[in-house]
């Protein structure tokens, strides 16, 4: 477990708290809360996807909500219209999202930086009308309900609570496995190629990195992660609608990845945790209410879009590398050939 070596004690404390909470929560919560927690856990996947493409690969993606949606709609299609077993449907749904990511990733071969941000933002904006245009897949304006249920097997119990715990465990396992896979990917030869491509693609190419393959593969894996997140949402709530996948949602996913910290896997976990804490606190505050302008400000704190928009702006100035990245100045030396050479054979790079 290289992931755990050489961390500061605070990371251990935070990790222990997280593990404790993950075990403690299902034992003390009711079905509704448990579903909520499962959704939170699953939402790490999409953020991780953005992190892989943007943080490691340097390809800004503002449209990952679209891949979440594709994963959800595809899984709903496979499990219902094709009557497939759940696991197969989830795998295929993830693959479909990956393929759609590849299609989007192809332009990324030539379109870089801010222009790629523009194209992916356009994708996020176009998605809702596009989904409405194909009502047989997306359920059109009103959305589609999924008939199949992801229930616990009989040996696990047949109460609704048992079903909820069963789904919770599945979500947890899926996310842990996805994090492990991503961790291994970014710390492997392929991961070094991805980061070299981000830092200086010309230099990376000179060192033998196949830019085309690396870019497309990165985008594919990144979209697959997001699609898996969408598929697991279907597992938790057997209903999906284009209404969920607004532009704002895509942008908040991006913001979560950036605020948590790009280029560190734990950044994505921290970002999602933060989103939950913020939305909990925001709800409490807006319930307190207030009069006049105070009430309006408190109500604004209840919307993810406001808080994360504000977070994006503020963190750009205070923590250019996100919360996990720490307070360091921007990447000044990035792109220097000498730096790349020095880092090339080292396993752990400081992003």
């Amino acid at each position, binding site marked *: 477990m290289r992931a755990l070596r050489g961390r500061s004690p605070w990371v251990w404390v935070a990790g222990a708290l997280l593990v404790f909470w993950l075990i403690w929560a299902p034992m003390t919560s009711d079905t509704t809360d448990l579903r909520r927690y499962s959704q939170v856990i699953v939402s790490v996947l999409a953020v991780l996807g953005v992190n892989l493409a*943007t943080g490691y690969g340097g390809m*800004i993606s*503002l449209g990952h909500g679209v891949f979440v949606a594709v994963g959800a709609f595809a899984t709903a299609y496979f499990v219902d219209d094709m009557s497939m077993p759940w696991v197969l449907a989830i795998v295929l749904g993830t693959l479909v999202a990956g393929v759609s990511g590849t299609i989007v990733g192809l*332009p990324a071969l*030539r*379109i870089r*930086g*801010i*222009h790629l*941000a*523009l*194209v992916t*933002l*356009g*994708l996020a*904006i*176009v998605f809702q*009308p*596009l989904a*409405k*245009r194909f009502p047989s897949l997306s359920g059109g304006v009103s959305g589609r309900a999924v008939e199949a249920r992801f229930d616990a097997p009989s040996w696990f119990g047949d109460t609704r609570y048992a079903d909820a715990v069963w789904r919770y465990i599945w979500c947890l396992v899926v996310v842990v496995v996805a994090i492990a896979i991503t961790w291994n990917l970014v710390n492997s030869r392929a991961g070094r190629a991805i980061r070299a491509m981000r830092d200086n693609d*010309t230099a990376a190419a000179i060192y033998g990195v196949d830019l085309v393959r690396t870019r497309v593969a990165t985008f594919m894996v990144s979209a697959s992660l997001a699609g898996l997140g969408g598929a697991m949402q279907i597992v938790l709530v057997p209903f999906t609608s284009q209404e969920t996948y607004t*532009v*704002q949602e895509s*942008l*908040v996913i*991006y*913001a979560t990845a*950036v605020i948590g910290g790009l280029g560190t896997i734990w950044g994505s976990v921290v970002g999602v945790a933060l989103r939950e804490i913020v939305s909990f606190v925001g709800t409490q505050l807006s319930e307190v209410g207030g009069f006049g302008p105070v009430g*309006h400000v408190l*109500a*604004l704190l209840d*919307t993810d*879009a*406001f808080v*994360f*928009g*504000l*977070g*994006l*702006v503020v*963190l*750009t*100035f205070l923590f*250019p590398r996100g919360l996990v990245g720490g307070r360091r100045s*921007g*990447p000044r030396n*990035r792109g220097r050939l000498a730096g790349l050479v020095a880092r090339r054979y080292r396993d752990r790079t400081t992003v």
Partner: protein
Amino acid sequence: MDLVLLLQRIFDALFNSAIYSSLALALVIIYRSTGLLNFAQGEMATLAGYIAFVLLAGPSRGVYGSGVLGLLPGVPYPVALAVVGAVVFGMLSGAATERVLIRPLRDAPEMALVNVTIGMLLLINSMTAQWWGTGPRFFPPLFPTGPGENFDIFGARLRYNTIGAWMTLLVLLVVLAVLLQRTRAGLAFRAVSIDRTSAELNGIRAGRTLMYGWALAAGLGAVAASMSANIVLLEPSMMLRVLVFAFAAATLGGLDSPKGALVGGVIIGLSQTLIPAYVPFIGFELGVLPALLVMVAVLLVRPAGLFGTRRIERV
């Protein structure tokens, strides 16, 4: 093919073209000088549109913000004056944005600027939704739109509204051209756009010059929002779709070419109406899809667009 119908569709499309051209022009002004795509341009425009809405409503109608803006003399304003108010607000907010959020990030990586503009998009979008509700609001037309208020050309109706939008745009273009070509600040702006460091070495205050550019762009956006608010109805996300069209127009014309923004706006406006009309598969809802595809195709095949400057990369 029904030629009268085609002509009618072209006339209808020209109104959208004017809006896309003006917003694309705003994007180009900023891209040309600062080198960044302002993703928040549409939302800044929407906010200015809401300011016009509040100025129209006046103090007594219980609209958010009318208590403060109602203190201005003479509120409620007639439409034209309200739009002027929105433009003034837009220019001030544009200048403030540059000064507070963009200027300190001069040496920051590209992604920092993306983050700030995306953050602003989210911020403004959620604020307008919170303050004025997500439901669409009626916004009066700037030019007469009633039945019979049009020219008849070969049996097709060219609305006064369309002509008014184009007249507005052309007047703005003339003003812009005079500002850029005939004034000292305009000369400074052109110098900063071409080479910021050299301009600064010549004693030009680049930051302040760019601030004027941002003010101009946001003012143009406010005009675009006010003109389209009657058609698409005033709502918090109304400019998101428009922004895709405007970005497609700017990309098609060349992201650093004002002329390109104008031509691109016309072409994208026409394609938005004509493609769904003659390709039934796409349908009106999806009119935004061709725009996105055009944008991707241009960026892939010819990133400089029709009139933009080609970039040469050096290793």
